[in-house]
């Protein structure tokens, strides 16, 4: 029985999300992947994709189609996708505070406050150790202290690992913000000045407010935070921060599938964490985050370069106003 379950999960993933993620750059994915698909008629255009076991294969374009939405009729925004477990790996050795992740996030979620949902902290453990840049977003903890304290079940944990907020239900008590040790939650102290853009986008995409697209729209007097972009995953694309990063710092994927990708490179999650000694923030608190960090050793980028971008007092660019 269990085997059946895991088989069907594997099939689902093979056909759905996995390919979606891997083919995110092309925005398209193959209907099916297997040895039989390798036989292609001569002259037909092919596309290179990575299979689940990590080998590159050629797939004819005719076999490639739009990924259907992951959401089926059973989709429940409070339950999330079955048999998926979202996970992120942040490679600190690659981060030089380019801040593209932050501006992409701010833009896509129409963040208009003074506190971004994704912040790049200038960190230094002690004077004798090297400083480094640490992109920090909601850690989507498996034991989320914010969810524990919410009096009205406005913030909730889904089976796919996401911690989301129902802004229609939030009473604005801010207990979750006090409880979060990572300071990733922000409050809409005033009426968010998101302007017409959020509404136009909502109209174009026929969206209604849903907790799985945070900031669409934001509401005065409620708490906001990073949602791990399930609305992008649903389209077979990567979260905004992941695809915006010029240095490939962010890897996103599925823990069950044991795979993460930054769009260019794909790794086995377990191997990556073992090889690079991955860790999670404040592990001792027992919050069990879904975001892993790779230590800033053997750095591919220069820390000092990031200083030109560093602004201690600003994380949301409001120059458009």
């Amino acid at each position: 029985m269990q085997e059946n379950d895991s088989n069907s999960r594997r099939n689902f993933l093979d056909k759905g999300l996995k390919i979606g993620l891997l083919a995110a750059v092309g925005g398209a994915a193959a209907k099916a992947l297997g040895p039989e698909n390798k036989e292609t008629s001569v002259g037909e255009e092919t596309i290179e994709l990575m299979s689940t076991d990590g080998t590159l294969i050629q797939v004819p374009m005719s076999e490639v189609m739009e990924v259907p939405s992951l959401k089926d009729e059973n989709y429940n925004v409070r339950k999330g996708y079955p048999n998926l477990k979202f996970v992120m790996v942040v490679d600190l050795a690659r981060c030089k505070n380019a801040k593209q992740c932050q501006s992409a996030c701010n833009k896509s979620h129409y963040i208009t406050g003074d506190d971004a949902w994704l912040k790049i902290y200038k960190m230094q453990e002690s004077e004798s150790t090297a400083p480094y840049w640490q992109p920090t977003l909601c850690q989507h903890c498996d034991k989320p202290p914010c969810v524990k304290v919410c009096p009205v079940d406005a913030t909730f944990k889904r089976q796919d690992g996401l911690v989301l907020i129902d802004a229609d239900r939030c009473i604005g008590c801010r207990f979750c913000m006090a409880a979060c040790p990572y300071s990733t939650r922000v409050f809409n102290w005033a009426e968010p000045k998101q302007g017409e853009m959020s509404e136009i986008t909502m109209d174009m995409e026929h969206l209604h407010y849903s907790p799985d697209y945070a900031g669409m729209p934001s509401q005065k007097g409620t708490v906001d935070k990073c949602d791990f972009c399930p609305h992008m995953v649903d389209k077979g694309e990567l979260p905004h921060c992941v695809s915006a990063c010029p240095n490939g710092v962010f890897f996103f994927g599925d823990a069950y599938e044991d795979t993460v990708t930054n769009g260019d490179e794909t790794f086995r999650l377990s191997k990556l964490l073992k090889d690079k000694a991955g860790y999670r923030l404040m592990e001792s608190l027992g919050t069990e985050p879904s975001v892993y960090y790779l230590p800033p050793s053997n750095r591919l980028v220069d820390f000092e370069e990031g200083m030109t971008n560093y602004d201690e007092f600003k994380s949301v660019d409001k120059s458009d106003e």
Partner: protein
Amino acid sequence: MNAYDSLIKDLAPKKFGKTGKLWVGFLLLIIFGALACYVIQLRTGLIITDMRDYALWGIYISNFVFFVAISLVGSLITAILRLSGAKWSTPLTRIAEIIAVAAIIMAGLTIIIDMGRPERLFNLFIHGRLQSPIIWDVVVITTYLVISILLLYYPLLPDFAILKRHFNNNPKMQKWYGKLSLKWTGTITQQKLKNKSIRILSIMIIPVAFGIHTVTAWLFATTYRPGWDSSNFGPYFIAGAFVAGAGGVITVMYILRRAYHLEAYITAKHFDKMGKLLVLLCLIYLYFNINEYLVPAYKNTVEESAHLQGLFVGQYAPLFWLVIVGGLILPIIVLVFPKGRKPIPVFIVGLIVVIGAWWKRYLIVTPTLLHPFLPIQGVPESWHHYFPSLMEWIITFGTLASALLIITLLVRYLPVIPIHETAMEQGILDADKTTKQ
């Protein structure tokens, strides 16, 4: 006029004099100012406060904790002292219950002021999750409010009957007191029922009182933050609450004694006893304070030391030491001497204790929030600090004025000294035609 009639004359509620009217007008002025500010807050959001994403709670919350703390005095004076057989506290029971009811009502309203979405208050009942300490608080505060009102009301029944008779030339008052007395005639059955109810309530209110303030402490202690992450927090809050409440009773009893010339009922002996009680409570609270600050200071972890340095020598140091010395050390030193327990010094110390208790809660809530685990970066410079904005102050003063107004109005219409109980203790109840002996 016999002793009993003059007792009633002394203790029956009186119309406001000029000072009383001015006082009510003054309170109403503050309350209307606060209401105006609150309307602005409802329209524009909590942006009108100085709270931001790091200092995410401010004086609304510390003021809420203060109200909860003050309200505990009801259980201290009426329940603990009553059950322990301390007869001297009889004249103070009603004052204590009035303060408790006013404070707990305002605690409930103050927490709503802090909400970003007060119109969704009913989500607490529709979607309430028992895992959240806020729901525990909602449950115990409501329970405490009900018990406190009953504990104020039941001992009033014979007094209402007495007042109904007393105001025989004022049909309106007579009608109201008559209705409120629930047809009290003083039969043995009624007496038994009343006494039994009061005894049950007095016992019930003690765990509930401990509950409200322990849960309020847990709103903080259930988080990871240095300064809040403490297993000492429940008893620490309760000890502090008794200090604050005793200070509150002393302050109010002194003012009422002066305003209504109750020197014969609230005597120097009561100030002496309350002074002694306050010393005891301060010593207990001092003990918990030492626990709360010394142990983390000894370990001196990076997070704790950042927090404690801010209090001991940093930006909060002047306020911190004023509160510790004024609200804790000074009362012990002054009140330990018989000369310090005269009405005027006790009153002054009591007032300082109340003000100190208010600021103490500010120091518990605010500094911790400004020392998060990750550095404060990427937010405007002003977000690194917190001091209440003007409108925040006005709204907060509005809540304090509302509490005082509730007390004032209750004092206007209720006998602040229990008439029936006092008469019984003085052995002059025979003349009371409402009580069949």
